[in-house]
C-alpha cells in the first residue's frame, strides 16, 4: 500500500528493508549513527540530516561511524565491496569529494575494466548536493557532471520520495559502483511510497508531465521548479513536456530524443554550473541526433559560472527559478529565423 512519506523516510526505509533482506549490506559514514565513543546517546544523529536514524540499533555491528577520513573510509567501502560486502557509504557533502575522489574514480570506477572483467564493486556512495540552504560555497555544489564524466560509475539523482526509495534499493542491488545524489532541499518533501520493496531501473527517464509544445529536460530538485514553470505556462496555453532524467549515467537518450521529435523545442534545466554540465551534455546529444526536429535553438537554464554565494539575496539569484524557465520557454517558442 502506498502512503505519503518524506524523501528522508523513503531513503531510511530503503536502507532498512535492504539491510533486513541482505546481511552483506552495511552502512558507514561520518555520524551515520553519531555518538560513537561519546558518553551520551548512541545513534544520536542518524546522519547529519537524519537519513540513517534508527538503523544503528536495528542492525548491530552493521552501521559504522567513521573518523573524518573520507579517503580512508570511502576507500574502505570500495575495498569491502570487492570482498563480497554491499556497503552504502556516505560522502556527507559532495563538496568533500576532493579528498577522496581518487578512490572513487581511479579505483572503484576502473577495477572492472582494468582487471579485465574480473572484479565486481557493488558499492553505493550516498551524497548530499545542491544549493538553497544558505550553506555557502563549500557545502552547496552539484558536481554530478564530474562523476557522470567517469566511465565505470553510475550516477543517480531521484527527485521524488517514490524514486528515492526504489532507486536506492536498485543501487544497493546493482553490482556496479553507484553515486547516489540526494538534494538537501528535498529531504522534507512528501509523496506516495509503497510499503513493499520495489526497484526503479537506471537509464529510464520519467516523463512527469506530457505536453506538445516544448520539451524541458531536467533532473533532481529542478524537476519541481520545472513543473512550477510548466503550470504557469499552461495557464497561458503553452504545454510543456517535462522529462526527469533520474540517472545521468546511464542516460536514457531515447526518451529525450523522442520527446524533442514530438515538440521540436528544447529547454534544459540544470542546477549545476554551466560549463561541461548535464545541460551541455543533453544539448549536444539533441543537436547531434535530433537536429532535424529542432525548430529553435536549444536554451539552457543553469546556475551561473560562480561559486555558490552565501547571502540569501544572492543565492536565490544563483539557483534557477521558475521565472527563468518560463522565459527560456518563451524564447524557444517565440523564436523565428
Amino acid at each position, binding site marked *: 500500500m502506498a502512503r505519503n512519506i518524506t524523501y528522508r523516510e523513503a531513503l531510511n526505509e530503503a536502507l532498512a528493508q535492504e539491510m533486513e533482506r541482505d546481511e552483506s549490506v552495511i552502512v558507514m559514514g561520518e555520524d551515520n549513527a553519531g555518538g560513537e565513543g561519546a558518553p551520551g546517546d548512541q545513534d544520536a544523529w542518524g546522519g547529519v540530516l537524519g537519513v540513517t536514524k534508527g538503523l544503528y540499533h536495528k542492525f548491530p555491528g552493521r552501521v559504522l561511524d567513521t573518523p573524518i577520513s573520507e579517503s580512508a573510509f570511502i576507500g574502505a567501502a570500495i575495498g569491502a565491496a570487492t570482498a563480497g560486502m554491499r556497503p552504502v557509504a556516505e560522502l556527507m557533502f559532495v563538496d568533500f569529494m576532493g579528498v577522496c575522489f581518487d578512490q572513487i574514480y581511479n579505483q572503484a570506477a576502473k577495477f572492472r575494466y582494468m582487471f579485465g572483467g574480473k572484479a565486481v564493486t557493488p558499492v553505493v556512495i550516498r551524497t548530499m548536493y545542491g544549493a538553497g540552504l544558505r550553506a555557502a560555497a563549500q557545502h552547496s555544489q552539484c558536481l554530478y557532471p564530474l562523476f557522470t564524466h567517469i566511465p565505470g560509475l553510475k550516477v543517480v539523482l531521484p527527485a521524488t520520495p*517514490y524514486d528515492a526509495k526504489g532507486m536506492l534499493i536498485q543501487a544497493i542491488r546493482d553490482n556496479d559502483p553507484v553515486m547516489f545524489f540526494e538534494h538537501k532541499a528535498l529531504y522534507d518533501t512528501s509523496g506516495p511510497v509503497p510499503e513493499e520493496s*520495489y526497484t526503479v531501473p537506471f537509464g529510464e527517464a520519467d516523463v512527469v508531465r506530457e505536453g506538445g509544445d516544448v520539451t524541458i529536460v531536467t533532473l533532481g530538485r529542478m524537476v519541481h521548479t520545472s513543473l512550477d514553470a510548466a503550470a504557469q505556462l499552461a495557464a497561458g496555453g503553452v504545454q510543456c513536456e517535462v522529462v526527469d532524467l533520474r540517472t545521468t549515467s546511464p542516460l536514457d537518450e531515447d526518451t529525450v530524443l523522442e520527446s524533442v521529435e514530438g515538440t521540436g523545442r528544447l529547454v534544459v534545466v540544470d542546477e549545476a554550473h554551466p560549463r561541461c554540465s548535464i545541460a551541455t551534455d543533453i544539448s549536444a546529444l539533441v543537436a547531434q541526433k535530433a537536429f532535424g526536429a529542432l525548430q529553435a535553438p536549444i536554451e539552457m537554464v543553469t546556475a551561473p559560472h560562480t561559486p555558490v554565494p552565501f547571502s540569501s539575496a544572492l543565492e536565490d539569484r544563483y539557483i534557477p527559478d521558475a521565472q527563468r524557465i518560463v522565459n527560456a520557454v518563451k524564447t524557444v517558442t517565440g523564436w523565428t529565423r
Partner: protein
Amino acid sequence: MTDDRIVPVTMPKWGLSMQLGKITGWIVTEGDEVSVGDELADIETDKIAGTLEAADAGTVRRIIARVGEDVPVSGTIALIAPAGVSDADLETAAEQARAVIDAGVPDEAEGEPAVETAEVGGRQVRYVGAGRDGDVVLLVHGYGGDRNSWLFLQAPMAGKHRVYTLDLPGHGTSSKDVGDGSVGLLADAVIGVLDAIGADRAHLAGHSLGGVVALTAAARDPARIRSLTLIAPAGFGPEINAGYLRGFADAATRRELKPVVGQLFADESLVTRQVVDDLLAYKRIDGVDEALHTLLGTLLSPDGQTQGIDAAAVAAAIGGAVPVTVVWGTEDRIIPSAQAEAVAGAAVHLIDGAGHMPHMERPAEVQAAIEEAIAGAV
C-alpha cells in the same frame, strides 16, 4: 421550477477515490441526437482516461463543462432534453450546473472507503467495498490486474448493491507470494474475502483468469454463490495469446510493455503513459516478477502455447446450480470470443467491437449484463 424532461449528463465516478474529472474533449456538440451507449466525451481522472457513454437517449441541448476544466463527481456536464423544452428553462438549469462546477468538490463529499485486509492461508488479501444496500457482489480481476480494473463499475453499481473488489495474491497491494500459483489458491482468496465480509451468499463476476477463479470458488460451495458473470474467462478452450502473456510477464521497460498492453484493447489509444507507468511500478515490486511467471505455468500448458486450465470441467461440477452469464468482446485478441460457446448453459452477451477488457472499454454494457445476471439469480 425547471422542466423535468431535462436529463443531466453527469461526471461519473470512476474509482472509489475519484473526486474530480477533466473533460479532455467533447465528441458530441449541441444539437446532436444520441442513443444509449453513444460516446459523449473523453474524460481524464488522475487514475485513468476514458470515454463517457450516454445513459439516456435524446438531443444534446446544452454543453456545460468546458474542455480542460475539472468537474466534481456527479456534477452536471451537459443537458439532454427534447425540442419542446424552452431555452429559458435550459438556461436556468445550465446556470445551476455551472455554479456546482465552479464550487468545486463539496466539503461533505464522500471520502474514499478504507481498504481492508483478509488473512487467507498466511497471505494478506486486500479488498474494498462500496455501497450500503442490496446483495454482495464481488468482482475478481484478471492476470496482471488489480481491484482498480473495476474502476468504471464499482461506484456506479454501489448505488444498488454492496460491491466489493479484491486484489488477488500476487497483485495490487495483496501479498505477492502465490505459492504454487494454482487456480485453487486464488479461489481460496476469493472465499476468504467473502468470509471476511461475512457474506453468506454473494454474486461473483470475474475477468479472464479471474473468471475461472470465480468459477472455481463457486464450485467449492455452489449454494453460496447466487450468480456468476464471466467476462472473457480463461480455460474454455485451447487457444490463447501466449505471446501476450509471456510478453507481459517479461517486459521490463516502458518500450517493451506498451505494445504488449495495447493488445488488451480494441482501441490501443486507451493505453496511456499513466497506464503503462502504473503497470511498470507494479511489476517492479519485489515478488511480482516471480508471481507472474509462476501464474504463467498455470495459465499455459507445458507446450507454452495453449491454455493449461480446464474450466469446462469446473463448470460441469457446478452443473446448473449457479446461473452463469458470459460476456465477451468480439475483438478480443487474447482469448477468442468463440470460446463463449463452450460455457455450457450460459447466457451470452457479445459486445461488438470490444477487446479483452470490455469492463474498461464498454463499462455501461458490462454493467448492464452483470445487473441482468444479478436480477435473474436464484
